[in-house]
């Protein structure tokens, strides 16, 4: 999967957790899930579990804690689907 494909799939996973939908229109690698998309931090765990199911991968807790920016999340996902 390309970075663009992973990003698009990630965007659809994140969408239900973003209250202000217009914030999703301009997702960049540097976009921060909490700061920029204003996601409730308690929902990060749900996003990680959804990502694991959608991509059929396992994300350990150390990696999960790094998934704050889109680029880091995509890198962590890409590493695991190609592993």
């Amino acid at each position: 999967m390309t970075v663009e494909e992973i990003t698009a799939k990630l965007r659809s996973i994140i969408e239900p957790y973003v209250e202000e939908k217009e914030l999703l229109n301009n997702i960049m690698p540097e976009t921060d899930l909490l700061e920029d998309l204003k996601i409730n931090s308690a929902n990060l765990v749900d996003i990680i579990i959804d990502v694991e199911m959608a991509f059929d991968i396992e994300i350990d807790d150390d990696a999960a804690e790094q998934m704050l920016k889109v680029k880091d999340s995509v890198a962590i996902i890409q590493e695991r689907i190609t592993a």
Partner: protein
Amino acid sequence: MDHCHTILQLLPYKTPFLFVDRFLQIDENGASGEYTFRKEEFFYQGHFPDQPITPGVILTETMAQIGLVGLGIFLTKAHESKEKKNFVFTSSDVEFLKEVLPEEKVKVSSEKIYFRLGKLKCKVQMWNEEGERVAKGVLAGMMV
């Protein structure tokens, strides 16, 4: 069942906001416990003056204290170190099926959906003494 008693002692709540009399069972998959709503509870004075009924928020709180916080203490092994933990209630989606009146004893049981990165999410149900389900829902919180 020794750990049930220890976990009861470690709950951060005190009267008039403690809604657990005892835990019946706590293991890695879930927790159960019971509470009797005393007719003197503070909220019956206003909810409602002539017709006391236990408020839904209090039923939700009771479900959270037994099903979520009790289980959270067990899962973080705080009962082994006797360490007091704080708990942040982060979400609830509860349906109320029957009213609960003063002096009713309720039983709560929870079933873990997941516990990851400090967040615990559970399916929680409440029954009355007749064995009728009075509330059900999904609650989540973070152990900090």
